[in-house]
């Protein structure tokens, strides 16, 4: 059990345990920081994923672009974010809305209202 865990639900502090689980997934995501790799991935996603050490669950989450599952399966948000650049790029707030499961406009409105959170006691 990591000493750096947050107490807040819905938070996956990127500690050693998650990092070990997500290493192959993040290695795949990191590879997309190259134009040729992005083209190769989009041309044949399953074949491209064969080059990396992903679990079946991780592989399916990539193919379905299931953003919350990618995080839960060990994806680090900064590496997973590279997947959002493919095709018509997503905004960071769209990635947030997709994980929370809200329409984008509603998500943004809610954040602004909820932004009045207190200083920790």
């Amino acid at each position: 059990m990591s000493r750096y865990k947050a107490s807040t639900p819905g938070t996956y502090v990127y500690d050693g345990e998650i990092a070990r689980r997500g290493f192959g997934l993040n290695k795949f995501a990191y590879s997309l920081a190259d134009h040729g790799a992005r083209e190769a991935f989009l041309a044949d996603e399953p074949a491209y994923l064969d080059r990396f050490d992903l679990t079946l669950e991780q592989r399916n989450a990539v193919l379905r672009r299931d953003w919350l599952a990618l995080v839960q399966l060990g994806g680090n948000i900064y590496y997973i974010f590279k997947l959002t650049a493919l095709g018509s790029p997503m905004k960071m707030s769209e990635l947030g809305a997709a994980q929370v499961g809200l329409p984008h406009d509603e998500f943004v409105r809610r954040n602004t209202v909820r932004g009045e959170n207190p200083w920790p006691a």
Partner: protein
Amino acid sequence: MARIIGGIGTSHIPSLGPIIDRGLTQTPEWKPFFDGYAPVQRWLAERRPDLAIVIYNDHGLDFFLDKMPTFAVGAAAEYPPGDEGWGIRPVPTAIGDPDFSWHAIESLVDDEFDITICQELRVDHGFLVPMNLLWQSDWPVRVMPVSINVIQHPVPTPLRCYKLGQALRRAVESYDADIDVVIVGTGGMSHQLHGERAGYLSRAFDTQFLDLLESDPGRLTELSRSAYIDGAGAEAVELIMWLTMRGALEPFVRRVHRFYQMPVSLTAAGLVVFENMAESRR
């Protein structure tokens, strides 16, 4: 002797890059935000520092999770922008100062900071967006990037980051050249990008952070990393990089400027400019 004239804290929100590149900074949506940077741009134009130490974090551009340095210091002659997944942005290549960098590296290691030395380093939005916000499209300043790991836990403690700032000040003040240095801490403010808690923001946390950063930064070094994560959002742990900036300044500083807007993209954006008291009197 070299001296630190002041410090700047600024967010480094990635979505600002395309806004700048597409010339949208004066649109009704974005003008209020970019206007918030006019006073710091004027201050920099007046003070004209020779060198900027930029404390930032790599977001999976030049560092992968295979080897993650806690503190990495640039020693290169130049720092080119890299491809974060969207192609390479049309920004200048930042110019380094290897003489200063090697002096700072020796000083830091003698000071027991066991940093990673980078003779080649590509930089991402964590570095580039602050350069755009502070110096716009033309960067008349040499730089030394310092990358802090805030991605893979355990990240360094807030106190350690503050002490790194103190060590950077000793490095500057022991450099035998008549240069003015500004130190820039980047990242934050409150935000969480991942999980069911994505979208979390806290104006109260940010306000208190900005107040204490100015008047009593020791209090901020006493907060645990978990307190930053719980109080300001998981990715707001980046604020420890502002503590490095503050550690490099005098205990008492004069505030030149402060600006806050929430939200910008998925993040609360903050800006502070502090001047060392000795500089204010010059």
